[in-house]
């Protein structure tokens, strides 16, 4: 197996690629779509954000400090939790709006790092940022997607199915039995994207991380092994995250007297 050397890109290369966005802008003007301004801002944001992250990661990679790595990891968890909650049409009142997502993502992120990086990959030291941060990012990104879908399904179907849930409660069912249909639906919806993406991986799409490693000159079989590991970590993390968030969310929608408490939700300002 030959290993090709990595080809570094110049800023001129990026500028050439950026010229493609002019086509999109031109189409928007030609067809009067009115999205050229939004498109331009989005393209600039993407480039600036990624470059900034590149410099931050470069700095942290040179430090190899547990404090810096965990500090950035915590920031990623907080941003992911904020994003998960921002996508809800109905949110929990009070600090639970963020507490539920933050707690779940923190737990899943820690577990993915300890198990995936600490136990399976085993770099030395275990907190080597080159391993910890990209893997944490991939797990968090997918888990937040699952959590936000799961919680959105839970809250909207609890509101829609209120009469059915309360009928069960009125007949003496516990909150877990009364919410079981809604909870199952939310768990299924939350896990569906990762199940679908696992099934399509390798046939419909080559995952970004594997492609990146191949471009960097890594043996495709080695790159595949990493991808399989990451996919399992993502699948496990998402399943656990969705489970914790949905069960926690269902608990928050009911109280210790097994009553349905939809008054604990508020409409998000969107």
């Amino acid at each position, binding site marked *: 197996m030959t290993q090709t050397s990595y080809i570094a890109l110049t800023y001129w290369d990026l500028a050439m690629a950026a010229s493609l966005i002019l086509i999109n802008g031109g189409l928007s003007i030609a067809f009067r779509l009115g999205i050229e301004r939004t498109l331009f801002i989005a393209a600039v944001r993407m480039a600036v954000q990624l470059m900034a992250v590149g410099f931050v990661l470069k700095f942290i990679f040179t430090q190899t400090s547990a404090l810096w790595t965990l500090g950035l990891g915590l920031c990623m968890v907080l941003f992911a939790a904020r994003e998960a909650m921002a996508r809800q049409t109905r949110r929990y009142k009070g600090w639970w709006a963020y507490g539920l997502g933050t707690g779940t993502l923190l737990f899943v992120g820690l577990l993915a790092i300890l198990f995936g990086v600490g136990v399976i990959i085993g770099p030395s030291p275990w907190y080597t940022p080159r391993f910890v941060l990209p893997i944490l990012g991939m797990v968090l990104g997918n888990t937040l997607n699952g959590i936000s879908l799961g919680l959105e399904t839970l809250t909207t179907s609890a509101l829609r*199915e209120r009469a059915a849930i309360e009928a069960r409660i*009125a007949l003496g069912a516990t909150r877990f039995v009364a919410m079981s249909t809604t909870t199952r639906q939310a768990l299924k919806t939350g896990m569906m994207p990762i199940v679908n993406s696992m099934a399509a991986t390798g046939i419909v799409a080559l995952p970004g991380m594997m492609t990146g490693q191949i471009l960097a000159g890594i043996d495709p079989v080695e790159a595949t092994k990493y991808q399989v590991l990451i996919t399992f970590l993502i699948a496990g993390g998402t399943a656990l995250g969705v489970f914790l968030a949905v069960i926690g969310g269902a608990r928050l929608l009911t109280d210790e*007297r097994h*009553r349905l408490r939809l008054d604990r939700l508020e409409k998000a300002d969107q």
Partner: protein
Amino acid sequence: MLRIDALEVFGLEPVSFEVSRGECIAVQGPSGSGKTVLLRALADLDPAKGQIFLNGTDRNSISGPDWRKQVRYAAAEPGWWGETPREHFAADGELDIPLESLGLNTEQLDQSISRLSTGERQRIALVRAVIDEPEILLLDEPTGALDAKATAQAERLIKRHLKTGHAVILVSHDPEQVKRLADRKLAIRSGRARMGRV
């Protein structure tokens, strides 16, 4: 049997009254006066301060589900979680209540709920509420969607429940029905609940 002591329900002054075994109390008042919230509070479906005792047992000393097995609320618009009525009954066997007496038949138990009429759904919901004989039945306009014949059939079922030593608290907008079923009347007006004769 059921003693309500200074129950604080949203929009109402504290409510206190007692219900005896075999007694039917009708709750009357204009729409939005708080009849449904009172019944929901009695079934512990919404948080409410104050005390409720069933045969001397404080509501707070037993779990919510155990309380609601004894103090049962049946909503004006019943909720359904399964495809067919049969899925809403605990046992798969024969029901103790003959459905024919309510103008229903057993085949309807296996029909899709969406294909049943509003009146049929309301009668099945009534059967579902009384089937395991709760001590107190809280009925929120149980015959609102029924014609005269079906109303009479539903009332027979309510009377049967009363005769077996249970109690009923009933919200009804029909003064004739109140006369036929109730022993006393709890009138809610301007946020105050007053017990009186029918």
